[in-house]
């Protein structure tokens, strides 16, 4: 009875902690609307403060919790909205930096840490791997709010998805070798790397295909389909990580992260096309909510985990780690993109994007989880584990707080923010016309219904008319001075019109005026149109990023 009561009390305490974290996250989400700080950065800062009250939050934070429970849904949701044609178009630079860059970076950081911090080689290598995993959550959220070119978002997000997997594989190899008291040989390392990586991809692609083509195609039920995608996100991770146990092959682990990425890509690019529009809306809403919750937990937990007073005990090593990580990231981002530019000239990554890729290479949950794994592992001494943990926390904190709060300014200074002053001015006038027309309609209604006497309603609507006329005139002149805005407005208006068509179709279906088959067929066509518009817009955007040739005329000779 006593044990049961103690367990129940512990569960209640953990539940209370979760409730507190949820409330804190909601409060921060409200707050960041008023202050210009990325949501995730604000979460970390509040987490740092919460860490001073250890009794306040009673949660067992382990690497398994982060890697096994929190990371899979985040990765799954990130790839769910990553169109394959767009990813494929930039697969060259993404894989070069995610695989080549992570491998080279791991070794360079490893050498520096061995020589300058005095870590054993395999521990230094493990640190090099874990600190190579970038976490783009804060940066991607910023991209969305600043209206940054989608190609840049795909490059940053794509790199992160694949380098997470590469980092985990190298980390596990180094940790495994240290635990077994062996050295890590190149041959063994490369062999393992391919088995684990390709195996993980195969598991994810297979499970993703089954769910997309069999379940999502055959069933039209938002609850079943949403639950299935949730099961797939976790299932692909678990099956890949436990592949050896499931199929009786001793010590065989495949990459769970790559399995989740592959499964998410299948569902996002095939599965979602097999669902009805209403299911798709439910499914996307569910994943949006889950991502918000998981991100909130992860970044609060990062803050809670980092004890600032502990960090102060090892400032020299942390400073070395931050410096080394920054310098090596700089070398890799510029070096590899330069090399890629020579190989694939038609998809050269613009210099401005390289600046953002360098400074936007924040570190987060994966680095933290792997550092905790290493600190808990008997492979290294407690002192080594603690040093690596503190250096990781230091780097994560620096990148999130220093780089995370300044990357927005960098994007704006580089002119990559989609919303230029002229575009903002255009949107302001459009918004005023839209709002004032709504106000006018309301006054007209009140006048018509006799709530306002006619003369008053007429006088007020005429005042609105004058204002609307002024805004419309200004907008017309605006396009004459800024012709470059014309296409983006045309595309934005077309997208809005397509979404309105989609909404009207759903409404028709709900009211029973069109069969679900007809609604589905037309909605799929609209989905394709929206995707097509994005492709056209992306091509147009990528062309308009650069200065261009003008003013030449050539006649036949």
């Amino acid at each position, binding site marked *: 009875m006593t044990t049961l009561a103690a367990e129940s009390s512990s569960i209640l305490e953990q539940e209370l902690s979760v409730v507190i974290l949820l409330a804190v996250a909601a409060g921060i989400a409200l707050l960041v609307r008023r202050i210009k700080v990325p949501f995730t950065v604000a979460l970390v800062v509040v987490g740092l403060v919460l860490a001073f009250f250890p009794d306040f939050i009673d949660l067992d934070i382990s690497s398994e919790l982060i890697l096994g429970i929190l990371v899979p849904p985040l990765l799954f949701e990130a790839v769910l909205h990553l169109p394959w*044609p767009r990813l*494929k*178009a930039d697969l060259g630079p993404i894989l070069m930096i995610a695989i080549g860059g992570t491998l080279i970076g791991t070794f360079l950081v490893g050498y520096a840490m061995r020589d300058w911090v005095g870590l054993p080689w395999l521990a230094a290598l493990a640190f090099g791997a874990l600190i190579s995993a970038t976490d783009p959550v804060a940066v991607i959220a910023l991209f969305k709010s600043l209206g940054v070119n989608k190609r840049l978002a795909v490059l940053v997000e794509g790199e992160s998805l694949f380098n997470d997997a590469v980092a985990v594989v190298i980390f596990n190899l180094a940790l495994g070798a240290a635990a077994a008291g062996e050295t890590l040989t190149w041959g063994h390392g490369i062999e393992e790397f391919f088995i684990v990586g390709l195996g993980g991809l195969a598991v994810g692609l297979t499970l993703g295909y089954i769910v997309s083509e069999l379940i999502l195609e055959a069933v039209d039920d938002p609850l079943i389909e949403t639950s299935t995608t949730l099961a797939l996100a976790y299932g692909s991770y678990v099956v890949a990580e436990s592949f050896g146990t499931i199929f009786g092959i001793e010590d065989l682990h495949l990459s769970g992260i790559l399995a989740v990425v592959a499964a998410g890509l299948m569902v996002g690019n095939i599965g979602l096309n097999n669902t009805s529009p209403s299911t798709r809306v439910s499914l996307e809403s569910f994943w949006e909510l889950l991502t918000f919750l998981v991100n909130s937990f992860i970044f609060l937990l990062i803050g809670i985990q980092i004890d600032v007073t502990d960090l102060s005990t090892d400032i020299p090593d942390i400073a070395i780690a931050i410096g080394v990580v920054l310098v090596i990231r700089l070398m890799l981002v510029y070096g590899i993109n330069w090399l890629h530019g020579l190989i694939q*000239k*038609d*998809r050269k990554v613009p210099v401005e994007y390289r600046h953002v890729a360098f400074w936007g290479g924040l570190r987060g949950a994966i680095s933290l989880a792997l550092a905790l794994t290493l600190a808990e592992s008997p492979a290294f001494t407690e002192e080594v584990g603690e040093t690596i943990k503190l250096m990781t926390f230091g780097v994560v904190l620096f990148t999130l707080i220093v780089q995370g709060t300044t990357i927005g300014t960098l994007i704006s200074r580089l002119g990559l923010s989609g919303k230029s002053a002229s575009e903002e001015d255009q949107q302001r006038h459009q918004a005023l016309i839209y709002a004032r027309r709504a106000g006018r309609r309301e006054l007209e209604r009140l006048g018509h219904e006799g709530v306002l006497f006619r003369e008053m309603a007429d006088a007020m609507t005429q005042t609105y008319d004058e204002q609307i006329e002024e805004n419309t005139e200004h907008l017309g002149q605006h396009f004459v001075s800024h*012709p*470059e805005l*014309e*296409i983006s407005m*045309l*595309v934005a208006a*077309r997208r809005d019109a397509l979404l309105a068509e989609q909404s009207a179709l759903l409404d028709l279906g709900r009211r029973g005026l069109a069969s679900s088959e007809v609604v589905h067929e037309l909605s799929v*066509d609209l989905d*394709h*149109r929206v*995707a*097509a*518009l994005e*492709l*056209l*817009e992306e*091509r*147009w955007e*990528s*062309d*308009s*990023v*650069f200065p*261009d*040739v*003008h*003013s*030449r*005329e*050539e*006649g*036949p*000779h």
Partner: protein
Amino acid sequence: MGGEVVYVSWGGTGQGEAVRAAVDRAGEAGQKLRYLAILDDDQFGELSPALAEAVRSELDWLLHAQLRMVNLQTEVAVQPIIDIRQGDVEEIIVAVVQDAGSQLILLGAPLPTDPRAARRQSIDELVDALREQTGAAVEIVGPES
């Protein structure tokens, strides 16, 4: 000059200013205008059939809207023929210009930065190649032209 003026944009929609300039140019020459929009293989080469069809259809929709807008804004009203094709940029331009017997090719600026979509190392090289193969005059029209 006989036939029609061929205005070319590739890699998505053309810039409004370039389209207006092309319409004016065709109006001045008293010729028909063919709006040749090329979906280059680099970006649109390997789409699923449904998505490829949607891309063509959306591009057609946008170009019609854009041309209607240009016609409403300019004094010269021309009714261009919209011609959307997919494949190698240079080959398509040459084929269309030869079929139409055009003597004037207008390339819509800003040109895609990547002239390699047309297998050339620079826009100048592309312009020279088009001139040589078609015998037509080649102009770049659009912002700052």
